[in-house]
């Protein structure tokens, strides 16, 4: 107990002396309890913001935990699109994009690009399959030091409208311990709950995949806002359309080789540089920007803003692209996110996956440095 007679040096009146005296007994207990309540409330608010009181909320940690539980955990690899090979090249802008966006990347000129082709799935050593989702992550390094990153896939529509649907699908597609196949009942229940996925799958089925990475079209899927110098914005979705002619699967005969898709890509890029046109599709009033499962109607204005050339290929083990998080919200001034809920969720989940693998020992990639030599 502190001395009751302690005073401030400035005390001069009897009333101040009274005030500064330590409280005793009941009044002191009430005040102590009050302080306790205030401190606990502040701590409680902090924990509440941190999600401690909502254990069932879908968080980036829970999402990536589920990916690891279902797909397995492979040290140092991406939690999805784990198998890949890295590329370099450049983007030649023709200047036509400047009327839609003030982004430096659309001014006439060349911008270096580094990227990574990948196949969907968490196993970095899985055998290549024609039906697997093909991914292309790109990083454009702009002359003013800005960056534009995008992660695209070869599906014309995304099967999930929001992170919850994606998560529920991961849960439903968990292979059964005995059959090693997803439980059809669980998948049927998922589809019944997510009619937009059924509609998106119809669209996806109507676009047969091409024979390889080099002649695949890659879709940005989510809508973005292209902001011009005046601050006016236009809803935009972008697509990379290959210059390499489309070839249907089967024309060349699908190989049984484990890495046949990647090997073909490497052979193709070593033969001649690969090219794609970057096509912007402009949305109109009423076109959904918050639902990647719904493509925009046919006939929307399209603008070819330049060509992407990829002229060298590297194993993940030697390329800096392995350590790039192709976060779709690393955007230059002039491109902004739309109201699509997937965008922020992708950014959060990619970041969680990146943080985990960044600190892990890096295991050798399926496509080794010797695979990418002539």
């Amino acid at each position: 107990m502190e001395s009751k007679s302690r005073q401030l040096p400035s005390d001069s009146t009897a009333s101040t002396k009274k005030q500064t005296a330590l409280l005793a007994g009941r009044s002191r207990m009430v005040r102590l309890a009050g302080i306790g309540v205030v401190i606990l409330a502040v701590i409680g608010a902090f924990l509440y913001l941190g999600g401690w009181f909502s254990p069932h909320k879908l968080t980036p940690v829970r999402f990536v935990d589920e990916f690891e539980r279902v797909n397995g955990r492979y040290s140092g690899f991406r939690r999805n699109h784990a198998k890949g090979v890295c590329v370099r090249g450049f983007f030649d802008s023709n200047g036509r994009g400047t009327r839609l966006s003030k982004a430096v990347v659309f001014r006439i000129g060349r911008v270096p690009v580094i990227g990574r082709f990948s196949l969907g799935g968490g196993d970095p050593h899985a055998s290549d399959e024609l039906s697997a989702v093909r991914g292309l992550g790109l990083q454009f390094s702009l002359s003013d030091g800005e960056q534009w990153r995008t992660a695209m896939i070869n599906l014309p529509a995304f099967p999930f409208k929001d992170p919850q649907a994606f998560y529920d699908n991961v849960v439903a597609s968990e292979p059964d311990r005995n059959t090693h196949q997803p439980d059809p009942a669980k998948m049927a229940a998922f589809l019944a709950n997510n009619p937009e996925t059924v509609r998106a799958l119809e669209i996806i089925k109507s676009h047969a995949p091409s024979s390889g990475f080099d002649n695949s079209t890659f879709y940005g899927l989510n809508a973005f806002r292209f902001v011009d110098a005046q601050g006016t914005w236009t809803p935009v979705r972008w697509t990379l359309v290959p210059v390499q002619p489309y070839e249907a699967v089967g024309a060349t005969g699908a190989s049984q080789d484990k890495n046949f898709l990647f090997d073909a890509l490497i052979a193709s890029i070593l033969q001649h540089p690969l090219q794609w046109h970057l096509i912007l599709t402009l949305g109109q009033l009423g076109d959904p920007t918050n639902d990647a499962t719904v493509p925009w109607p046919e006939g929307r204005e399209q603008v070819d803003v330049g060509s992407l050339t990829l002229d060298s290929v590297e194993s993940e083990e030697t390329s800096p692209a392995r350590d790039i998080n192709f976060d779709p919200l690393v955007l230059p001034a002039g491109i902004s996110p739309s109201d699509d809920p997937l965008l922020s969720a992708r950014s959060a989940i990619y970041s969680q996956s990146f943080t985990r693998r960044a600190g892990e020992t890096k295991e050798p990639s399926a496509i080794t440095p010797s695979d990418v030599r002539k």
Partner: protein
Amino acid sequence: MTTDRQQFTGSMRFLHWLMAATVLTMLGIGVAMVTSLGEYHRLVSIHRPLGILILILVVIRFVNRLFSTLPPFPATMSPRERSAAHWSEILLYALLFVEPLVGWGMLSAARYPIVLFGSLHLFPILPHSVMLYAALRRAHTLLAYLLFLAFIAHFGAILFHTLIVRDRMFSRMAPWRVRAL
């Protein structure tokens, strides 16, 4: 007895409350954004420039403190309390300086663009290393919790002195001017 000697100077009090608001906002944003999917991007976009603002403010505040005359400790503080107050002040200054630097450093090590707003972005301050990023990312969380605990201790001590010891401790740093203590 002049009021100046009993209260911290006007600039010190202004910087204290400005930083109290920014740092508490920052702790809330930080702990919320790592568990958020839908609001993640919005929160991160505030977190980065706000962190740099705090880094600038803490440097200004430190320099301002060096050139300011401090009021003496109240007579109600025991030598042990004075020592604790002294060291916790050093700890808070250190955390407020180091935490934003670790944030800037970890983004640098991962080679994320460190966008403040529009096309304005900061240069990297560390070499490219994802292992370094991972270590700093963990440190960033740890230091944030430590900062929160240091804040709770500071807040609790002020409440105790002001409400139980009743030595008007709060008035020393009150945002308004207190004539006589």
